């Protein structure tokens, strides 16, 4: 697994969305739960996957025809590396909310 050169707030939001679920998460669900536009989420997921933080698999839904959904989940190393970033982000958000 490669370290990320730059961890943006949008990346942390995507990591948080992935961390919240113990199951693989549909890309569209990440867009919705992170509150980030698809134009940000798709490149972030791609970068995380290339860096070994995330793996993805096709859905297994025989009842649904047509194109398959892609599901993402953090790797073991990715989950470990994401934890401090997500925690720091939560602390910062909480501090901002307290001062507001």
């Amino acid at each position, binding site marked *: 697994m490669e370290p990320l050169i730059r961890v943006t707030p949008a990346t942390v939001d995507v990591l948080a969305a992935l961390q919240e679920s113990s199951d693989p998460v549909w890309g569209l*669900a990440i867009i919705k739960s992170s509150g980030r536009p*698809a134009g940000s989420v798709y*490149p972030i997921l791609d970068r995380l996957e290339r860096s070994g933080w995330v793996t993805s*698999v096709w*859905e*297994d839904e025989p009842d649904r025809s047509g*194109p398959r*959904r892609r599901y993402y989940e953090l790797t073991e190393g990715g989950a470990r590396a994401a934890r401090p970033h997500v925690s720091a982000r939560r602390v910062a958000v909480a501090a901002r909310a307290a001062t507001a």
Partner: protein
Amino acid sequence: MRRVILIASALLPHPIRGRYREQWLADLRDAPEAGVGRGQIAWGALAFAATAPRPWPAMSFDNLRARRVGFALALAAALLGLTTYPGYSVGGILPAPWGLLQFAFDTLVVALQVLGPIVAVVVVSAVRETPWRERAGVRMLALAAAAPLVPALLGRGDNLYLYPAALAYPAAVALILAALGLRHSGAPSRYRPRAVVGAAALVASAGLGGVSLAAIGWIGRVPLVTSEPVGSALYEEWLRLKVEFEQRVDVLLVASAITVVVLVAAVTVIGILGRPVSLTAATIGAALLAVFGSAQLVQFLVLATPTAGWVDGPGVMGTLVRLATVVAVLATIDGVRQRLPRSPGAVDRRPRTRSVLSG
């Protein structure tokens, strides 16, 4: 929206195209269910396609070799074509607007001749993983390409440096092609496109510097084309024929040179983007060059005979070299069967997961 997705996925590098096309189409279909706008998916796909990293695609050894050799040879063929113009335009007396075009083109040639070696050496030196053959070849070509500058710096006269430089061209090109094409490396490299551009710049410099000077030198040895008049009447007649000949030739050469510049730019851009169509582009470019080469060969044979029994030797030889290079390009490209990796979506055999949203 579906059309936008298809366009966006078509813009992606081949190895990931199928995977993202299927993923985005599924997202587009299910966007209303997830409460996400379909326009956002389409826009996201376009944004991703525009910014997706394009590393040198992971290909089998044969494909990698074919791609590199084909790409390099296509550029070499294009640049060989390009060198024909400066070689034969020297001494030409051209009416407007062709004179202006000649001036502009000669300026471009000089700029390439000076900047090409510098750019190529800097680029290749900056890439740590450049194999020694490529480094040696690039530096050798840089020295050879500098040959035309020597008489300019030292004054007029015979340029003895030109002869070893001429020998260095094929050796250096062979080294570069060997490094680009025969290096057994399946690992994608984000530096490799830059190395190819550097080598291409060197080939350009070498071609422009060496072949044009060699052609000029050969022309100077032909008695009919010498500036030493045998007699004033004969000289006047020769000058009239020469101007008439060069006016006719230069119109075609300017047109072909402009076309070649466009082709070089197209092949370079498409090749750097790392798409499989670069091979197609190279084929088209080489075929167009072959057409121009054939046309010029005929023209040289017919028009370059102001007196009976005289044939423009450098012109014929230069055109034959260009045609041989084009044939090599076509043989290389067409002779290797493509075995591009299938898209990840097509080869995915990993266990599938259950949907977390579909319940």
